[in-house]
C-alpha cells in the first residue's frame, strides 16, 4: 500500500486536511462502530488520509477535494482482523507446492518464519478482502503427519494486510506458536508430558543463552535443545514482549498453560481452548487471551469433551479477552458468521465485533495501530450493507491502508463469466 512513502509525503507537506493532492476519502452518514472509547456514532464521518484515519466525528464533514463514500443506512467498522489463518501461505491445500504454512522435524522451531513464504498474489487474498478481511495473523501449523517427532514450536507468526502488494508485512514475529495437550503430545512423540518438557527446556535454554551469548558462540556453554536461530526467536517471548500462541483444549492442559506462562512470565494467547470456559476465572486473572472457535461444540477429540457453544460468552463474562477465528484461510471471510454465532449464544454483540477487529490487534500489542476507527489508526475500514455479523450482510466498500480495494476476485470473475450460460461465445472468450 506504499504506506511508508505517503507517510513521508504527509509529514513533508503538513497537516492540512484540505490539501488538494492528499488523497482524502471520507465515509459519511453511516453508523460507525469505532471500537474505541468513542463507542458507536450515528450519522458520523470517517476521514481517511494518507493511509491513516485522520478524524472520526459525528455529523457530515467533507473536506474540499475529498472522495466521498455515502454510507447512509450503512454500517462502518474497522476491517476484519483474522486472528489466525494461513492466508498467503496456502493456495490449494492438497497441492503440496502451494502450501508453506508448516514443516516437519525439529531442525527449526521458533525461528521458522512464515512471513518469508507469504504470497501477496494468492487468490485467497482478494476473495477474503472483498468480504471485509483486511488484516490477518498468519500462523505456522503443526507438523501433522510427520514420521518422526517434531517440534512443539511450529514457528513464528506474522501480521499482514490483504491489499495484495509487496508492502504486505506489518509485523514480523508477531507471536511464536507452540502446542501442548493432545497436539503437543502428538508432536513430541506420544505424551503431553514430553511436549511440556520440550517447551520448558527450550524456554530455559533461551534464558540461559540470553545470559551467556558470548560463551555459547565460543562453544563454552552446554548444549541447548534448540538451535541458535530458535534461541534468538524465543528472546522476545521470554521477555514477555512477544506473545506465545499456545494451543490446548482440555481443561487440564489449559491449567498447565496458565502455570507455564506464570512461571516464565509469558504473554499467553491460548488457541482453541475448547474447554477454556472451565478455567474462565483463572484465564482472566492471568490476563490470558483466548482465540475461540465459536462453532466448536462437539467432542471432536477426548481433549474437547466439554466443548460448548457458550464458551465465548463464559470467557467474556469472566473478563477474558476473546478473539474469534477458526483458522480457516480460504473462508476467513466467515469470521463474521463465527462472531455472529457466538453472539447468538450469548456473547455481547460489541464483544463479537471486537473479537474480529480490535481485540486481535490489542492481543498482539498493536492496538494503537489497527482494529479501531480513531485518529492515527491505519485506515483498514469496511462499509457494510447491514449488520456485519449477519450472514446476509456484505461490504459495499473495503479499504486497506486507506486505499479502496476493487470488488473483484478470481471468484467474481468466474461468476461473471458463467452467469449468462446462453452467451454465444465459449466461456474462454468471455470476460478475461
Amino acid at each position, binding site marked *: 500500500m506504499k504506506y511508508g512513502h505517503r507517510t513521508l509525503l504527509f509529514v513533508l507537506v503538513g497537516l492540512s486536511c484540505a490539501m488538494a493532492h492528499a488523497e482524502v476519502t471520507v465515509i459519511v452518514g453511516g453508523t460507525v462502530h469505532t471500537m474505541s472509547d468513542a463507542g458507536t456514532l450515528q450519522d458520523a464521518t470517517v476521514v481517511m488520509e494518507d493511509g491513516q484515519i485522520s478524524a472520526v466525528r459525528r455529523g457530515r464533514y467533507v473536506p474540499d477535494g475529498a472522495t466521498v463514500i455515502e454510507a447512509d443506512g450503512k454500517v462502518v467498522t474497522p476491517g476484519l482482523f483474522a486472528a489466525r489463518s494461513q492466508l498467503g501461505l496456502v493456495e490449494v491445500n492438497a497441492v503440496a507446492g502451494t502450501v508453506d504454512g508448516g514443516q516437519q522435524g525439529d531442525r527449526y522451531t521458533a525461528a521458522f518464519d512464515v512471513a518469508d513464504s507469504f504470497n501477496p498474489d494468492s487468490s485467497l487474498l482478494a476473495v477474503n478482502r472483498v468480504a471485509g478481511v483486511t488484516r490477518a495473523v498468519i500462523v505456522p501449523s503443526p507438523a501433522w503427519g510427520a514420521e518422526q517427532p517434531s517440534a512443539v514450536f511450529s514457528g513464528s507468526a506474522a501480521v499482514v494486510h490483504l491489499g495484495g502488494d509487496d508492502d504486505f508485512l506489518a509485523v514480523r514475529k508477531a507471536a511464536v506458536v507452540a502446542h501442548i495437550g493432545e497436539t503437543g503430545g502428538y508432536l513430541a512423540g506420544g505424551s503431553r508430558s514430553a511436549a511440556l518438557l520440550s517447551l520448558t527446556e527450550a524456554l530455559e535454554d533461551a534464558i540461559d543463552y540470553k545470559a551467556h551469548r558470548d560463551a555459547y558462540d565460543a562453544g563454552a556453554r552446554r548444549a541447548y535443545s534448540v538451535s541458535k536461530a530458535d534461541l534468538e526467536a524465543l528472546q522476545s517471548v521470554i521477555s514477555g514482549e512477544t506473545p506465545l500462541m499456545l494451543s490446548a483444549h482440555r481443561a487440564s492442559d489449559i491449567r498447565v498453560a496458565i502455570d507455564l506462562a506464570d512461571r516464565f512470565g509469558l504473554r499467553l494467547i491460548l488457541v482453541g481452548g475448547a474447554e477454556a470456559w472451565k478455567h474462565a476465572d483463572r484465564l482472566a486473572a492471568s490476563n490470558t487471551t483466548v482465540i475461540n472457535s465459536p462453532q466448536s461444540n462437539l467432542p471432536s477429540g477426548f481433549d*474437547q469433551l*466439554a466443548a460448548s457453544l457458550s464458551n465465548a460468552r463464559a470467557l467474556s463474562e469472566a473478563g477474558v479477552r476473546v478473539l474469534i477465528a477458526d483458522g480457516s484461510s480460504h473462508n476467513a471471510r466467515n469470521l463474521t458468521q463465527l462472531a455472529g454465532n457466538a453472539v447468538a449464544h450469548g456473547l455481547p454483540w460489541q464483544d463479537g465485533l471486537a473479537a474480529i477487529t480490535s481485540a486481535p490487534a490489542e492481543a498482539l500489542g498493536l492496538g494503537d495501530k489497527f482494529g479501531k476507527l480513531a485518529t492515527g489508526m491505519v485506515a483498514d475500514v469496511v462499509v457494510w450493507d447491514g449488520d456485519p455479523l449477519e450472514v446476509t450482510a456484505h461490504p459495499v466498500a473495503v479499504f486497506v491502508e486507506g486505499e479502496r480495494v476493487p470488488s473483484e476476485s478470481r471468484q467474481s470473475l468466474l461468476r461473471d463469466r458463467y452467469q449468462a450460460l446462453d452467451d454465444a461465445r465459449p466461456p474462454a472468450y468471455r470476460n478475461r
Partner: protein
Amino acid sequence: MRWLMGLAALGGVLLAGCGAPEDQDSAAAFASRYTAAPSAPLLIRGATVLTGAGERLDNTDVLVIDGKIERVGEDLSAPRDARIVDAAGRYVTPGIIDVHSHLGVYASPGVDAHSDGNEATSPNTSEVWAEHSVWPQDPGFATALAGGVTTMQILPGSANLFGGRSVTVKNVFARTVNEMKFPGAPHGLKMACGENPKRVYGSRGSAPSTRMGNMAGYRKAWIAASQYRDKRQAALDGQGEMPDRDLALETLADVLDGEILVHNHCYRADEMAAMIELSREFDYQITAFHHAVESYKIADLLATNNICSALWADWWGFKMEAYDGIVENVAFVDAANACAIVHSDSDIDIQRLNQEAAKAMAAGRRAGLEISEAHALRWITSNAAKALGIDDQTGTIRVGLNADLVIWDRTPFSVYSQAQQVYIDGVLMYDRNDSDFQPVTDFALGRVSAPGGMQ
C-alpha cells in the same frame, strides 16, 4: 420403475412403490424398525410459515394430528386434548434435511476407531452399506437436531468409485440404526469422481490412478451389473436360473432397476458431464451430484437431465477440483431451474444449514437474482426430500405429510436464529427452553458442558 426427478415433481405420486423392497416388510432383515411415538394433537398458532415449497404464509396455524399435518390455515380450532404452541412472531419451517452427512460413520470423537465411512480397500465396494457402520450414539445427532435437522442421508465416503449404499434416517434417538431408518426411503448409491479415488488407489500403485482410469472402472462395473440385472430379470420372468447372490452386483442392478438412487460426489463440470454420458451408456438416472462446486458452469445441462446439485454455500480451494468454487453456485443452479440443495458434509455445518442457505441466497441476490427466503428454504427442505425420494412424506408443510417441523425464534435466514422446538412426526424431539427435551447421547453423558451446553 425408473425414478425421474422431473416426473416426481410433477406427479408427486410416482414415488409410491419406489422404496427399497426390504422396507415394505418390517419382518425383512435390515428393514426400518422406526415407529413414531404416539403424540397428542398439536396446534402451532400464529406463525410465519415457510412451507418449504416456496410459499410464505403469514399469521398461520399448523394443526398436527397423529403425527401428520392435518390442516394449515388461519384461526384453526384445536381439538380438546391438543397441545397449543403460541408461535406469534416466530417462523415455522419443515424439518431441515441434510442430503450429505457422515454422522454415525465418522462419529465424534474423531478417533481411528470411529473411522467407519470409507471401505477403502477396493475401488468398487458397492456391497457395503453405510447403515452397518452407523453408531447411533454419535453426539453429532443431538447437535444437528438442535439445528433443526430432522432427516439426513448418511453416506459412505468418497475414497472409492463405488462407495456403497447410503441410508436415510430420521434424526431420532434409538439404540439401533434400524430404528432410525426412514420408512420407505430408497437406498442411495455413493459414487465418487475425480481426485479421491485416483489418489487413494493410485498411491498404492493400483487402478484407478487417473480420471480415465476412474471412467474405465465405472464402465467395467456397470457392464457386469447390466449382465447380472438381465439374468436376474430373466429368471424372474421364468427364463433360466437366478444368478448367485452378489452383494455388489445387487446394489448396482438395483440402481439400473431404478430402486436405488445415485448420489455422485463430483466437483468439476467436465467430470459431471462425463458421468452423464456414463449414465446414458448404461441407462440409469443420476439423482444428485454432491459437492459439485462447478455446477454453475453446466447448470443448463443439469436442468435438462433432471439432476440435483447438493452444494456447500462457500467451500472452495481445499483441493484442485474445488478451486473454482463460487458463492453464487447454489443460486445460479437454482436460477437455471435445476434442483439446488444446500448440504453440509460436516458435523458442524449440519447444525446451521439455515445459515448456509442464507449465505447462498444473499450471494444470489448480490448477483442480481430475486430470491425470496421462502424460495431459498427449498434448498434445505423440499429439494432435499426430492433427492432422497421422500418428498411424498416430508420436506414440505402440506396436509398429509409427516409433521416434521421446526419453530424458529425469527427468520431462519439469520445468524441469530435458533430452533426453539423441533418435531419429528409430531413428536417434540427438541426444546431449547426445556432440558427434558434436549437429548444427550450415551457418549456425552456426564460430560457436563457450560451453561447452554453443546446445543
